[in-house]
């Protein structure tokens, strides 16, 4: 059984429905990320788990017990806020000790545990300072230490790195993952940064408008997005709507009005009856059209002829917008001799790079 389950949970602010019949399961010891654009309900879900807001319906089960009515201070969850929420009038030591003092832990034990936790987040020697005297990264580490020192049953992160600069973000996320694994604390992590989520999570749930579009291991999501939303979110910018499909032993064949696409069977193609294909701009091969103007449609499977509409230099590669009979495609390519606007080109869609989405 899962450590944490949200069953058919609903949340609404006034008349704004944020979550409806929402379900989520988190296993013991894992780090699960909730990823999605702003307004998708990820923070609401986290605050619901923390107890900062009440669900209007559904059930929240934690460790086999119904937690729906358990007040915040009895949940024993650690929460790390986006803005750190350190107590400005308390020293770093007192900030970290706060949770232990509420639990009436004995004085010597508090001293020992706070010291140890500050070591874990590499902030030894900062005990007497105040939050205002620390940098953003240091404050964030105090916030993490404060949440961890109570040995919480569950750790909750609300976009903890979004106020830090890029380099620090990378260092901190490695730290967070290290500490989480070292202590084996079940963690729910909210972010809108996909690289961050993918790099630290055991599982990622991609949310859209209060619904989980896909919950999988980061690798699986990255390779085989299940829905168009997820595909778009992680950079599959090209879609082909087909009308018909045929199943063969090693591959599937899809038909549009005039074109034919072969797709290799893989982990992502087995379960779905979808008729939509998606591909990343990096995975489309672009070549000069040799047949001159026009080009016969359907002369080869998995290809389209088109005309370069926009050519943009991105530094490492060139990005082209190519008009074809099936719409505009985005292609990224590293090349010595770039195409220019108006060039006739052939787009090749490798069959192992095409994925199926709903």
């Amino acid at each position, binding site marked *: 059984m899962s450590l944490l389950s949200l069953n058919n949970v609903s949340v609404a602010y006034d008349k704004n429905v944020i979550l409806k019949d929402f379900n989520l399961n988190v296993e013991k010891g894992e780090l699960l990320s909730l990823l999605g654009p702003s307004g998708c309900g990820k923070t609401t879900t986290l605050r619901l788990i923390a107890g900062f807001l009440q669900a209007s319906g559904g059930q929240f089960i934690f460790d086999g017990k119904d937690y729906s009515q358990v007040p915040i*201070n009895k949940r024993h969850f650690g929460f790390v806020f986006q803005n750190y929420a*350190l107590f400005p009038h308390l020293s770093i030591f007192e900030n970290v000790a706060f949770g232990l003092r509420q639990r009436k832990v004995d004085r010597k034990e508090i001293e020992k545990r706070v010291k140890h936790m500050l070591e874990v987040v590499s902030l030894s020697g900062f005990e007497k300072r105040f939050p205002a005297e620390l940098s953003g990264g240091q404050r964030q580490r105090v916030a993490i230490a404060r949440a961890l020192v109570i040995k919480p049953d569950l750790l909750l992160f609300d976009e903890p790195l979004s106020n830090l600069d890029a380099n620090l973000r990378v260092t901190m996320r490695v730290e967070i993952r290290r500490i989480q694994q070292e202590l084996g604390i079940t963690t729910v992590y909210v972010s809108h940064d996909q690289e961050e989520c993918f790099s630290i999570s055991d599982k990622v749930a991609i949310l859209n408008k209060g619904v989980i579009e896909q919950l999988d291991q980061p690798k699986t999501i990255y390779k085989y997005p299940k829905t168009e939303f997820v595909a778009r979110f992680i950079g599959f910018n090209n879609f082909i709507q087909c009308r018909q499909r045929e199943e063969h032993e090693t591959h599937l064949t899809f038909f549009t009005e005039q074109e034919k696409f072969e797709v290799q069977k893989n982990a992502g193609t087995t379960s779905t009856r979808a008729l939509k294909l998606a591909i990343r701009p990096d995975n489309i091969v672009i070549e000069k059209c040799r047949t001159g103007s026009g080009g016969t449609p359907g002369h080869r499977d998995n290809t389209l002829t088109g005309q370069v509409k926009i050519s943009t230099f991105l530094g490492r590669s060139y990005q082209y917008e190519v008009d074809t009979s099936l719409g505009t495609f985005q292609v990224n390519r590293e090349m010595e001799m770039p195409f220019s606007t108006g060039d006739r080109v052939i787009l090749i869609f490798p069959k192992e790079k095409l994925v199926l989405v709903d």
Partner: protein
Amino acid sequence: MKKSIAYLLMLPGLLFLVFFMVVPLLFTVSSTLVQQGHFSFDGYLAFFKDQYFIEILFNTLKVSLITTLMCIFISFPAAYYISKLRTRKKTILIGLAVFPLLTSAIVRSFSWMIILGKKGILNTLLLHLHIINEPINILYTPTAMIIGLVHLFLPLMIISLIGVMENISDDLVQAAESLGASRFTAFRKIVFPLCIPGLVVGSILVFVGSLTAYTTPALLGGKQQVISVFLYQNAMTLNDWYAASIIATIMIAITFIVIGFMNLAARKLNPKG
């Protein structure tokens, strides 16, 4: 160059303050320390030996202290509520809270006389409801004085508190709760200490204001003497400017002592405030 311009711009205000405040103040204070051409502390000693004056002094301090405490108790929940509101409603409520400041102290005092008088609205109401059998004496008592003063100075306390409370994020309370603190503990250990700077500013304004207020105690206090009324009588009725100067100097000293004491208390309660 830049600095000299800054000093130049400061000059008019500085001169005004020096000639119309600092110099007269020095004259007042020095005049109390000189008797028949000699330095002397006798004037003060005489005052502090005078039972009547001591009584007035304590009376004044008591009224000011109660007024300040009442203002804190009334303002705290109101300010907390207002500080959590969003823009429009907040603007309206702050406007309402400040409104008493915009009416004259005399008009307000007369209103309270109408309400609190022997045949006033309050007594009439209570008699009709058979809660009391004969009119109670509120007007011309310390109670009336305190009611008037609380009404007068409440806005200052509310505004001071809203100022600090606005900066206390809800996240802090939630953080405290998630660490195991009850609502009450979160308030006691987080919200309250963070309110101390506003509380100190508000308390100084209200306390010093009550200490030096003249109109309200004079109109609502009746025979109950406070120090400002006593000063007025010495200067205007008895024409004893020496005594009046001594009283004024004592009032200034008390003000400084109170401010110093409040700041000390603030530092103890909230070291980072």
